């Protein structure tokens, strides 16, 4: 993936919305998102929140997962990564 992350080139990631996050995103469960190479998950979130401002309601209680692992927002995303918006969990 390093080659696809050349300075200035865009990377495309898949964003997943679950449960209340999906509801707040108007029922959308997944979307593709283009961001500049070197962008962090937080940069992605800014674009996502611009598109779906209702998500602000869970801004303080949601977490992120990148490629099936919980991740801090400071992580740099790579092309074809899968970023998930995880609202408060309630399994069991």
């Amino acid at each position: 993936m390093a080659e696809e992350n050349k300075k200035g080139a865009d990377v495309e990631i898949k964003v997943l919305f679950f449960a209340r996050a999906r509801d707040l995103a108007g029922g959308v469960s997944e979307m593709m998102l283009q961001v500049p190479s070197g962008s962090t998950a937080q940069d992605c979130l800014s674009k996502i929140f611009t598109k779906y401002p209702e998500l602000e309601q869970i801004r303080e209680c949601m977490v992120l997962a990148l490629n099936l692992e919980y991740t801090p927002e400071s992580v740099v995303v790579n092309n074809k990564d899968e970023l998930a918006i995880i609202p408060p969990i309630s399994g069991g």
Partner: protein
Amino acid sequence: MDSENEKTLVEILEPNIQVDLAKYIKFVSNPQSGAIATFSGTTRDTFEGKIVVELRYEAYVPMAERQIKSICSSARLSWSLEAMAVAHRLGSVPVGETSVFVAISSVHRDDALDACKYVIDELKASVPIFKKEVYANGEVWKENSE
């Protein structure tokens, strides 16, 4: 242990498939074990005084499976365990039915009992599964407080 993967079963069940307790208990049974501890989470009929009609579960399935397997591996570091099975149902779970089931076998009983509590606690704390409580007059996404 070489055969750890063979001895750990994790299943996220599609909607309308009930949790088959006997199947998972059988999976963890073996001649080396002297103890089997299990935990079933079931839908109860009331929550804070409101009448619950059903619970509806969804999950980030591949991540949930991965997280549960990670919890099982972590439990094996803390306790001496033989076999482990964890199942979680998705979709609607009517009152009285099982949504989550944990079964663990061990040579000595404290290992299975303590690991069983650990696994359900960790599952509730960290696995991306989401529950909507459906009442007679509305519905709400839940949040595990623990």
